[in-house]
């Protein structure tokens, strides 16, 4: 379910907070509605860094984004991690916090990054149990994000859209829809991302991630890698317009960039492009609603 505070708001656009972008972000808060901060970077940060985050939160809207929970697993998430998220949320009071539908460890092995688990009933149930625990310990449910994968998850018995939809239904969490992840998985494994938007429960979408990537691998066996090091490609803006046409509630759109940082103006231009795309979709939605009412 979408929290009332989000449902009552308006579409917003922002950037992922990175040290290298800090000056650019702070100099352009008039063009940035919201900043997404990596929660894991702050769990054990010195007091001055946490104080800086509170200062940032006093100047603009902040949301927290986690990467290491590993919620989509048949194994229970670690209570210590949830306690850290709870403490950070209490300190910063973000509008929302989010995590990934990924598994990041198994049998004592830390994978070190987001990995797609087998898409099965067991991981649906495991994710729902983990997300319910997260809600109970942190006090609010996370927005859950679809991830990109270079490997077709072994042992899966359902497709990505079905799996995500089942988790959303059983956990009652809102969704952070990563459009480049959806796009990359579609190209890599033969699914149509536009069709996926028609099938996903768009009344659960409260936030959107935009990013870029690059092709890797030998010819004939290439895959699109979601690396956050490249500009947002044109098809992602088309998907964002479709989100605008389909999602009934306001969305927070975050542009993610993790390296090869361009001048801040270029990122702001991409944010403006995103505003126009979402607005075009919203206009389509409004026209449809008007026709329905006539």
């Amino acid at each position, binding site marked *: 379910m979408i929290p009332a505070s989000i449902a009552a708001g308006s579409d917003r656009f922002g950037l992922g907070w990175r040290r290298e972008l800090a000056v650019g972000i702070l100099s352009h808060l008039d063009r940035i509605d919201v900043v997404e901060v990596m929660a894991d970077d702050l769990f054990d940060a010195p007091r001055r860094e946490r104080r800086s985050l509170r200062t940032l939160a006093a100047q603009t809207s902040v949301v927290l984004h986690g990467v290491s929970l590993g919620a989509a697993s*048949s194994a229970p998430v670690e209570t210590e991690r949830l306690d850290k998220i709870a403490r950070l949320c209490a300190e910063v009071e973000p509008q929302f916090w989010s995590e990934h539908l990924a598994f990041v460890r198994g049998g004592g092995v830390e994978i070190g990054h987001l990995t797609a688990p*087998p898409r099965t009933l067991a991981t649906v149930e495991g994710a729902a149990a983990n997300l319910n625990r997260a809600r109970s310990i942190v006090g609010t449910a996370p927005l859950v994000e679809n991830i990109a994968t270079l*490997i077709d998850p072994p*042992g899966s018995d359902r497709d990505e859209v079905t799996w995500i939809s089942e988790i959303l239904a059983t956990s009652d969490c809102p969704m952070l829809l990563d459009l480049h992840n959806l796009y990359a998985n579609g190209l890599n494994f033969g699914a149509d991302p536009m069709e996926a938007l028609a099938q996903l429960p768009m009344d659960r979408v409260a936030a959107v991630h935009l990013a870029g990537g690059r092709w*890797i691998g030998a010819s004939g066996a290439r*895959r699109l890698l979601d690396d956050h090091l490249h500009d947002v490609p044109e098809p992602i803006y088309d998907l964002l317009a479709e989100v605008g046409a389909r999602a009934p509630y306001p969305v927070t759109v975050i542009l993610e960039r993790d390296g090869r940082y361009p001048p801040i103006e270029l990122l702001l231009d991409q944010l403006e492009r995103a505003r126009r795309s979402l607005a075009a979709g919203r206009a389509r939605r409004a026209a449809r609603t008007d026709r329905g009412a006539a």
Partner: protein
Amino acid sequence: MSTARFEAFLARIYVDAEARARFLADPRGEAMRAGLAEREVSALEKIDRVGLELAAQSLQRKRRRRFRRLFHTR
């Protein structure tokens, strides 16, 4: 499917190059030695090999980048 043991097996072949090489040389044998159920063994025999190699390389790069960030930003 998706037992904790299966997820642990996947984690191992994603991060450990030697374990991955042993697995790719004998998927059924390695999966059975890990005590996986027959349907899990069967799923691993059909693994997306191109994806496995690309994912393992990508995960290694990301782990290195994360370590660099951790040790150079504080």
